[in-house]
């Protein structure tokens, strides 16, 4: 069992809104690992879109991504990239 974690700052304008949250959940769902996302004092299962939305994470907030499982490292890497790419949002 591998454990991986990282911290990443949300750069896209709108923060974790409907579309970014959906992309995050869809990316997380591609992995076997159990992935948790923390923001401030809240945390959510990365597979739960409602949980992710309830984090209320805005641009500039730091996400703490924590994964446990066979593919934990790859999962954390892919999710971090997604956040850093600003969820492929324009400007």
């Amino acid at each position, binding site marked *: 069992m591998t454990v991986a974690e990282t911290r990443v700052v949300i750069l896209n304008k709108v923060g974790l809104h409907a579309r970014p949250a959906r992309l995050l959940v869809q990316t997380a769902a591609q992995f076997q690992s159990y992935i948790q996302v923390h923001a401030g004092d809240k945390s959510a299962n990365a*597979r739960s*879109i*409602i949980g992710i939305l309830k984090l209320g994470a*805005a641009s500039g907030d730091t996400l703490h991504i924590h994964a446990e499982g066979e593919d934990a490292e790859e999962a954390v890497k892919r999710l971090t990239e997604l956040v850093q790419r600003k969820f492929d949002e324009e400007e």
Partner: protein
Amino acid sequence: MQPEIQIPVATPVIAISPGIAIGPVFLHRMSKKATTAKKISTEQIEAELKRLQSALVTATQELADLSERMARMGGRNEADIFAAQQLMLEDPDLLTEVHERITQKHYTAAAALQEVAEQQAQELEMLDNATLATRGTDIKDAAARVIRYLEGEERTRPAFSHPVILVAHDLTPSDTANLDHRYILGICTVTGGFTTHAAIIARTLEISAIAGIDPQLLDELQDGEQIAIDGTQGFLYRHLDDGQQRMFSRTMQQQQEQRTITRIQNETRWRSCPASSADGIAVKVFANVGDGESARTAGEVGAEGIGLLRTELLFGDRPTFPDEQEQFESYVALFRAFTEHATLGKTIVTRTLDAGADKPFPALEPLIGALNDEANPALGLRGVRIHLVREELLRQQLRALLRASTQTDIHLHIMFPMIATLEEVRRVRAIYSSVCRELTNAGLTLATDTQIGIMIETPAAAFMADVLAREVDFFSIGANDLFQYTMAADRTNSRVTSMFGTLEPAVWRLIAHVVQAGITHGKTVSVCGELAADPRIGPALAGLGVQELSMNPPAIVRVKAALHSHPMAYWQNLARELLKAETADDMQRLLHS
């Protein structure tokens, strides 16, 4: 209008989605059966879970279809809403809670889902974030879809045998998107406004719609009664005589024929036709591009050039800088990706590396230190300021760009980001001239039509535009940054962005000043950024005198079609009216009138 026809009695309402519609009323009574927490017995649990599962499958499939349909029609935000709703119905946390209520508390599936959805929606609504709070509505909307199936309402849409005008108290986004638009001539609601999702969907589906009708009408109107609506001006017409009915029918028929023709023409026409207003005044519609893929798409959708080539992606998150040769090869590939697919022009306006602020570059850190250590990165070392402290990086990029342009048949233009002073312009021009000399001495034949321009993103550059115009070939207004620096509102900070409109009078006046300076000195002014891509604001910018609009490729056909919908005098008038606006609300009203 025929002279013998009496002008019908019109009731003013809110215009939601343009067009005239006439037809029989269909009163849509929402089945708001309150789901009572009916209990089931232990033996029924297994069956109830199965019923839930099958309702969920149907509903998620429906949402996937809706999302795809919206995306196909260009309603990207609406497509996102339904995709998010689909994920909500697959949410493991939500489903766990629903299952618990069924298995442990013996709730029916509908009651369980209703309670959990309400609760989750409330939690979202309590967040200190207006946009996120509205997602609560989505949870309830998604749950309601499943509940309809659970309660045996097989049809989620009203059944029509003939085209009608739908009259309802309100419509959710799902209600609106689910309507079989072959049978919906128009929509009248009591609640709703121009910017609601239901309104946006109505406009996407090209269904005429009005809102703000008297709630008493829900009782007064009879199913089948002939009414007419004007979704452009915002009027409701009742008690129509035969002549009036014929008049409205004729208008509606002409409008529908026109819409069909326009839809088909727009796609094919604007891909191969340069942009112009209805009276044939040309405005160049360019694409914002960041990589080879988007360069190809830009060519395919009819971009008349690339108005903003962002070079940041070529540098990406790499720990070290790509050397000149590697940059050269990337530029050649990118230029070719565009020219091989573009039929309307070969101009490529390249912006030199715009690092800093919200665009950090690991490769720069060893050279200029960590940018995030600055207290105010947006006001810190970025864009041209980095060029001037690390001249060799700019020289390298300019060499690679100029060399690449000689390998392809593009018209290369180069612009520098974040200019605030005339000195900066003079210094980068001197560097550019020196690089050109160096390459010419090395035996390279450079194009003679390469233009050098600057981004107007700072209020400083905008105010000095008349002075700067003398020393550059063109201006490109970076509307997003100009907005942020003018309004002193961080565009990545959702706590302040929501306080301002898409367009603010101060920004519009500043843009007008820059355009005027360009016109006076005979220099091209272009606008890139979200403003140019708006089908009303883009053409209004053209009315102001902007000669080039640069936008993300998907917006190109839309903006070309919008521009062509009116003569230039109309857009000039709109631009002038916008200059008189005192508030962002005034501007919105003008833009949607």
